[in-house]
């Protein structure tokens, strides 16, 4: 638990220390205070649709195996053999009834149970209680609209409470039509030489960087005519618990201006309106971060990404692309292509972000630069609680309102001894 958190984050005044991006001690505290306690995104249901399907991922730096058992239930476990700790499953995905450790051959079912142990009778004299040595499960696992989350903290509030008022915004991304979304096969995985909070804060509320950072991509048509005529409307919205959404005006065009996509969006407009209600006439959400490290985007590319921490200075990005399940094949294909060309390691937008995040993140290394406070004060005082949007919303479409709320939550998580203090 971090005692000096006030010297690191002063959300009220819009100041954060460069140290939070660089110091190993702070990073170790994050693994404990944030990643071992918060609900973390694991995968989307459609990535493991059938019994036996599995994926491996991480919760913080802890390797995790997510598997659907024979009855179709989704479980998640530490991907670590209980015997001597070997990494149990080394594949990223597949289909299995059982996982057999490569070291001494302990075998676990896809429900986590320890099924077989070589030499159980002779070497162990049948004295090993296999019921006690199954895989270590997560403390809680739940899903929202196909998004599977888990926490290693049994005392964490239920997922729905944790998400709170951000759920409607998640619906806007993942549940606009009957059947929700499906994830395109395959994932982008790559190493970003920056602290995990840098991309998290970018997606949480940085509508500011787009115009300058990504001008080269917008002018050469990577996002279609993305935002060529912004209405000037839009808000950055903090719905609580550190969850943040970036929205443009309801009539702003945030989709890639690919004819097949625009035609599709026009066609389903009324259906979506009916499903999601009046709020979609107020704002058009297009990016966001679910605290701490799950980010979502639906302009240019429909993509989600998990910023997996890899030490203070590195992040493993794991990104997938989603499409409305009910969309016709040519629309799904158009979104797939847009996602690849705009986002991911080669994306006309995202390849430039990498460089900037790396640069920002390295600011906490030097002795003098460590003393600096970075500025997240934009629009301070120009925000208010908006009942209609269920969140603290900025007056103007560009604001660091969300940054302040994201880092405020970060500070709270880092200093709180338990959930009742939060």
């Amino acid at each position: 638990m971090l005692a000096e958190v006030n010297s690191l984050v002063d959300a009220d005044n819009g100041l954060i220390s460069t140290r939070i991006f660089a110091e190993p001690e702070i990073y170790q505290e994050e693994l404990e205070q944030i990643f071992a306690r918060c609900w973390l995104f694991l995968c989307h249901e459609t990535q493991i649709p059938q019994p036996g399907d599995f994926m491996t991922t991480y919760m913080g730096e802890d390797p995790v195996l997510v598997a659907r058992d024979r009855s179709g239930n989704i479980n998640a476990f530490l991907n670590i053999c209980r015997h001597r700790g070997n990494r149990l499953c080394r594949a990223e995905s597949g289909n299995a009834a059982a996982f057999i450790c490569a070291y001494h051959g302990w075998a676990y079912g896809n429900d986590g149970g320890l099924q077989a142990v070589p030499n159980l009778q002779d070497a162990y004299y049948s004295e090993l209680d296999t019921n006690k040595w199954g895989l270590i499960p997560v403390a809680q696992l739940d899903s929202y609209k196909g998004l599977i989350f888990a926490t290693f903290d049994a005392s964490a509030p239920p997922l729905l409470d944790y998400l709170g008022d951000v759920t409607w915004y998640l619906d806007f991304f993942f549940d606009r039509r009957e059947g929700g979304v499906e994830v395109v096969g395959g994932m982008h995985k790559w190493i970003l030489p920056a602290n995990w909070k840098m991309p998290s804060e970018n997606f949480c509320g940085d509508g500011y960087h787009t115009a300058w950072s990504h001008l080269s991509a917008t002018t050469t048509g990577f996002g279609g005519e993305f935002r060529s005529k912004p209405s000037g409307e839009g808000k950055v919205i903090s719905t609580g618990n550190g969850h943040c959404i970036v929205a443009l005006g309801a009539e702003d065009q945030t989709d890639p201006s690919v004819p097949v996509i625009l035609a599709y969006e026009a066609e389903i407009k009324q259906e979506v309106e009916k499903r999601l209600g009046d709020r979609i006439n107020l704002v058009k959400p297009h990016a966001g971060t679910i605290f701490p490290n799950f980010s979502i985007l639906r302009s240019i590319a429909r993509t989600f990404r998990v910023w997996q921490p890899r030490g203070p200075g590195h992040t493993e990005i794991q990104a997938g692309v989603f499409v409305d399940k009910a969309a016709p094949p040519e629309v799904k294909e158009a979104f797939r292509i847009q996602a690849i060309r705009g986002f991911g390691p080669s994306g006309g937008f995202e390849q430039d972000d990498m460089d900037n995040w790396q640069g920002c993140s390295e600011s906490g290394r030097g002795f003098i630069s460590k003393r600096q406070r970075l500025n997240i004060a934009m629009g301070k005082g120009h925000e208010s609680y908006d009942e209609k949007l269920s969140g603290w919303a900025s007056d103007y479409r560009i604001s660091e309102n969300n940054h302040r709320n994201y880092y405020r939550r970060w500070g709270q998580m880092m200093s709180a001894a338990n959930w009742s203090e939060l």
Partner: protein
Amino acid sequence: MRDETIREIEQFLYREARLLDDRKFHEWLELLTDDIRYWMPVRSNRYPVISKAISILDGSRYEEDELSKEGELAIMDEDKDSLTRRVQRLDTGMAWAEDPPSRTRHFVSNVQLEPGANDSELNVYSNFIMYRTRAETEVDFYVGCREDVLRKVGGQWKVAYRKIVLDQTVLLAKNVSNFF
């Protein structure tokens, strides 16, 4: 395959690599056919079917191929238009991943030729190493193989299809901002 054809194709690939390293991207674009498909699938870690590390539950669903398929995610899935826009982006002075620019060196080897789908095409296989340094101390190695279809258009060889397979699952470079 005739020796001089092999030499000719090798020289074509070397010239192409030189244009990329010299950052003559517009000239490079001219070596691509208008209907080019330029594809770099993603690769993931999987157990082969024979692996004893898992016992497969549903064999009909089991996929052991490491490469993503058509219609799945890819690192690049380009046509002439999108490649042209990638080059135009580099001309804006605001493509920050390449500003300052990468220093690249493409090594092309293990060139093999096979007859193509018709008389004007050849299937060409090659390996590559692309070494990149950038800014102060950034170093990346992109290593893999390519499966090309080269087509003779107006007496000139051009790339009509290129599949690029990178030998990494989690990409260790922070981005892919160069061509292969």
